[in-house]
């Protein structure tokens, strides 16, 4: 029953986010600040993880190809498919739920416990719009991070395969071009855009409706990570079922 109530209040929150808009001159710097923190601040960790996971995918594919009849270009093909269709959009989003989501929950939650949100409300500000809308807009740039992740994942796979002598450069490049279906890219980006919205709003919900003190901020960050991950995995399944089956 409580879960249904929470889902209801999440959607009510979304309605209020798009209610009375804050002055653009006030909102603009907030959006730029959020782009800096949420997007630019995540590039390093995304690059690191993508590069090495791409490498691991390639190595594991190579090591599991014991049959000599299977062409070596499959390493490139498997790396491309895994990275573009699942690793970059979905699993990178779960990692981002930890990084970006925790930041959103704790920053809004701290504002709640220190009465900063009450102060904004008393001033007559639509706090939902002021606090959450800039994060939604900033995370519209999230697909750029995922593009970057896709590129580095495949590059990591290439370097691991070629320098690990699992296949030649030409075979790997041939592999990443085989049976390429452009719709898979669209599928990945549709997922990414939906995940970016979830990444902004679910943690914001947990921060905004936080009750208690500093200890609850930590707890809310953990809960928000769990729920964001669960929803991303579930939505991933639904989108895959709708778009690919």
């Amino acid at each position, binding site marked *: 029953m409580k879960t249904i109530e929470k889902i209801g209040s999440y959607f009510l929150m979304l309605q209020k986010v798009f209610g*009375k808009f804050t*002055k653009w001159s006030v909102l603009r710097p907030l959006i730029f600040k959020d782009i800096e923190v949420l997007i630019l601040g995540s590039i390093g960790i995304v690059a690191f993880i993508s590069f090495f996971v791409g490498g691991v995918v390639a190595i594991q594919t190579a090591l599991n190809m014991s049959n000599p009849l299977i062409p070596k270009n499959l390493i490139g093909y498997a790396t491309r498919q895994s990275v573009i269709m699942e690793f970059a959009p979905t699993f990178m989003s779960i990692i981002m739920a930890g990084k970006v989501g925790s930041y959103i929950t704790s920053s809004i939650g701290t504002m709640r416990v220190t009465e900063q949100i009450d102060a904004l409300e008393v001033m007559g500000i639509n706090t939902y719009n002021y606090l959450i809308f800039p994060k939604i807009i900033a995370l519209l740039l999230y697909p750029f991070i995922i593009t970057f992740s896709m590129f580095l994942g495949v590059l990591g796979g290439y370097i691991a395969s070629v320098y690990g002598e699992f296949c030649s450069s030409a075979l790997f490049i041939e592999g990443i071009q085989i049976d390429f279906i452009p719709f898979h890219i669209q599928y990945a980006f549709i997922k990414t855009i939906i995940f970016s919205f979830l990444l902004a709003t679910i943690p914001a919900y947990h921060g905004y409706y936080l009750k208690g003190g500093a200890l609850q901020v930590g707890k809310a960050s953990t809960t928000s990570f769990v729920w964001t991950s669960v929803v991303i995995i579930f939505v991933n399944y639904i989108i895959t079922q709708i778009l690919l089956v």
Partner: protein
Amino acid sequence: MITVQNLCKSFDQVNILEKINAKFERGKTNLIIGQSGSGKTVLLKCLLGLHIPNSGKIFFNDVSLTDLKSKERRLLRQEMGIVFQGSALFDSMNVEENIIFPLKMFTSKTDDEMLERVNEVIKRVNLVDSNQKMPSELSGGMQKRVAIARAIVMNPKFLFCDEPNSGLDPKTAIIIDNLIQEITKEYGITTVINTHDMNSVMEIGENIIFLKDGLKEWEGTKEEIFNSKNTNFDEFVYSSEILKKAKEFMKK
């Protein structure tokens, strides 16, 4: 002036405020006092419109807060200033940005005009040369001054202070109390202060209401405290040893 009529508020069927009637006059420091859990903060939040009362009315001059639509309530809130217990300064903004914030949100003044007004209030609360400091670099007393400056920058008609001197040393607490009283007189604001600090009560209590378990038990001025016949109020007041001795001294 703020008038409260038969205000009731409950949470989960537990009555927090029961039939509160009160008048908070303009140009006076109106104090709501009582023990922790007596309903002071809930009453203050009802006045601010942060809690919706179960029944009763709150009038800001002649405007009934409880009958206002959300848009009208938002407009009324722009005439209110509030100083929260923990100051509630925006962590990510420096002193100047904190104070200029309401001006940026609700006025169409130029940057120069806004800065001029900010410097005016900064000077008024004696915080000169602190414009670029972050809240974390300020002492508790200075944070309260910034909160007061932010609360008055829009020239509010109503000022609400939730335990403005909690966590401050007695000397700073008196300075903050006096500052609030001076500002109240100077700008002709209706000020409502929530406190359980008897030093504040004796210093600036021009109109005091005492709450116990959600009921208004006593009302009067600081001069009338020693003549009170209310046992609950006396129990609260004379839990302070200094006041007990003061009363004995006055009797003699």
